[in-house]
């Protein structure tokens, strides 16, 4: 990423995302410009003063499995030290309090017994867990009582044979996917089994699954953490955007595995459309109601019995097969009122036809409007789906180009940048159409559509250049053109996202559907 680095870094939305603890800033700043985007290294200092962050950017941090483990360990150690309880107990307490350390400490200071009991810990302390052989022992589960039977009991003292214990834990972990709240097998006993006791009892494979499940509860328990949804990715992402903020911001995050997704709804990156509209749009596209829409646009109902009729011949004199009602296909009026002007409807003004026509026209317009947006959305979606192929082709092209032109690997990186830009921009374009479908018409919409048009034109022309044969790509003039266009595309995308995100944050968009905008902000309301 050498030659293109300066282009990419000025517009990259990820470049300045560094983990830090300050509150998530979604308001952005007013004098936005991609030319003075802060250097990543300076970002920390900037945060002390004013954040230089694009309005569509959110802060997030990617955690790998070992980070997740470490975070838990840190919390467990803290609680272990402050409360002077074992690490296993600290972990159980923390899980009980959904990893809210402050609340745990507060509640524990107030009434320790109650907290321990509720979390499934008894106050009795005893030696580390061990298997024991006790004379005259009879397992309460399998009723086995032979000599030398190994048994185990948690602090509560409910003793069962090792086989039963293993079977019980195996079923809980493997079949029920339980980990954080496995209780003692005794009836009515709510003591929770701790990790150390578990390690003693079950096989290594099961222990691993148990710890995986425990890790999962850590991420799932915290509102600010989410798993990266990419297949086989084990990373989790931390982001401070809350559910209630989702009508004001589209929190797009990017995992280390390069998967970009929305932190709010876990779907693929859908900037600039907010989650709520995305949900509506996907439902609409999947819904069979659109079939019904087609029917109403291409067929007509018999004015008398309401049977659905598709015209299959040229004559306007319709006779309903069902009720034998005779009417004019053009005006929907009674055929008898047409007199002798057969095949030629000149009765537009007549009352009997206008009502029927109105409903027809409305449905037709709304269908056409939907199809306009849907076709463009679907087109970009398809192109986005072809991205994988495109990227593979790019790599081949880069290799080929190196061979044929004698350029170095670094020198052909511009193709990779162009490919990336195409993918990201198409993803954005796709959702601009879903977004536009729900926009009410006003000045802001016009600006939006201009931005959309600029981006689309830039993307299409880059796309065209990108698909040129390798022989032409070697031309250094084309190379410069592609680099310029790549940079231009990225800039156009940033401008579009910046505009939509800012207006969204300020609640300025007016939608033609119900949209929850909980923030009473100055300016026009976005409710219809």
């Amino acid at each position, binding site marked *: 990423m050498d030659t293109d680095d300066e282009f990419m870094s000025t517009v990259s939305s990820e470049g300045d995302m560094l983990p830090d603890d300050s509150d998530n800033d979604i308001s952005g700043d007013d004098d936005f410009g991609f030319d003075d985007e802060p250097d990543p290294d300076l970002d920390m200092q900037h945060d002390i003063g004013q954040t230089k962050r694009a309005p569509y950017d959110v802060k997030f941090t990617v955690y790998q499995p070992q980070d997740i483990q470490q975070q838990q360990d840190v919390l467990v150690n803290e609680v272990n030290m402050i409360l002077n309880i074992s690490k296993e107990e600290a972990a159980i307490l923390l899980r009980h309090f959904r990893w809210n350390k402050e609340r745990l400490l507060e509640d524990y200071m107030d009434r320790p017994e109650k907290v321990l009991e509720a979390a499934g810990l008894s106050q009795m302390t005893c030696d580390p867990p061990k298997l024991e052989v006790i004379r005259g022992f009879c397992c309460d589960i399998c009723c086995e009582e032979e000599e030398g039977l190994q048994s185990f009991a948690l602090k509560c003292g*409910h003793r069962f044979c090792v086989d039963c214990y293993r079977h019980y834990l195996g079923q809980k972990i493997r079949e029920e996917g339980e980990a954080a709240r496995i209780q003692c097998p005794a009836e009515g006993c709510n003591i929770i089994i701790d990790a150390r006791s578990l390690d003693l009892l079950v096989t290594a494979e099961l222990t691993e699954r148990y710890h995986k499940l425990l890790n999962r509860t850590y991420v799932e328990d915290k509102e600010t953490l989410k798993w990266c949804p990419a297949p086989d990715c084990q990373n989790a992402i931390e982001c401070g955007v809350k559910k209630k903020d989702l009508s004001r911001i589209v929190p797009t995050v990017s995992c280390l595995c390069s998967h970009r997704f929305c932190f709010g709804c876990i779907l693929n990156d859908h900037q600039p459309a907010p989650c709520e509209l995305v949900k509506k749009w996907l439902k609409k596209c999947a819904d069979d109601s659109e079939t019904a829409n087609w029917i109403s646009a291409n067929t007509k109902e018999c004015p008398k019995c309401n049977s659905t009729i598709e015209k299959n011949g040229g004559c306007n004199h319709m006779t309903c097969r069902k009720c034998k009602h005779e009417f004019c296909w053009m005006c929907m009026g009674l055929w008898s009122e047409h007199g002798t002007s057969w095949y030629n409807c000149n009765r537009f003004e007549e009352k009997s036809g206008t009502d029927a026509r109105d409903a027809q026209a409305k449905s037709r317009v709304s269908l056409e409007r939907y199809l306009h947006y849907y076709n463009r959305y679907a087109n970009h979606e398809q192109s986005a789906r072809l991205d994988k192929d495109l990227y593979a082709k790019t790599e081949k092209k880069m290799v080929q180009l190196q061979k044929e032109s004698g350029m170095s690997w670094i020198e052909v990186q511009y193709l990779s940048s162009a490919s990336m830009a195409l993918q990201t921009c198409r993803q954005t374009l796709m959702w601009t159409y879903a977004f536009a479908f729900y926009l009410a018409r006003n000045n802001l919409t016009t600006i939006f559509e201009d931005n959309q048009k600029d981006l689309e034109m830039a993307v299409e022309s880059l796309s065209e250049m990108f698909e040129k044969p390798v022989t032409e790509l070697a031309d250094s003039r084309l190379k410069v053109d592609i680099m310029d266009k790549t940079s231009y595309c990225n800039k156009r995308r940033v401008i579009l996202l910046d505009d939509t995100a800012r207006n969204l944050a300020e609640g300025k968009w007016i939608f033609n559907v119900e949209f929850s905008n909980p923030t009473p902000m100055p300016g026009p309301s976005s409710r219809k």
Partner: protein
Amino acid sequence: MSSSKRITKELTDCTTTPPPNITITLPSDSNISLWHITLAAPPESIYHPGKFGLIVSFPLEYPFKPPQITFATRIYHPNITNESSGSICLSLLKTDNWKPSTKIVTVLDAIRQLLVEPQPDDPLETRIAEQYKNDRKEFEKEAKAYVNKYAKGPVKFSTTTTDGGSTSTSSTTAPPGEA
């Protein structure tokens, strides 16, 4: 294996010191995993003096999985489905809550308690639960009518309805009729 030993022990315990109002029979001597239970409604419940047939089936994984228990006799109750195979809603019997050390006696106790005290907030039959909460008189009338219709006379364990002529000889009360 372990499950049969446990079931045998529980059966022995139940026959030597039978729980109140409960009689246990095995429909087949070779299969100890299927029990037929006759439960006499306790006097303090509105189902008294009805007698109800319960079918207990122990799964292979018992006691790690809960036993399956259904009412063979129809009953008008918020927590028991109003059909010929009356499923019971009892938190004790749910997989998540089931503990391997729970004995069948405890479960039967809980079911008997359910007859005395229905749990309308955790219903299987929402309509009956509503009625239980809002119109107790009507509920009791219906429940008693069901008792008269289905829960008198010899208990039958077939999965089909319990109406019709009885072939059993151990009849204790009048045959069903007035409802």
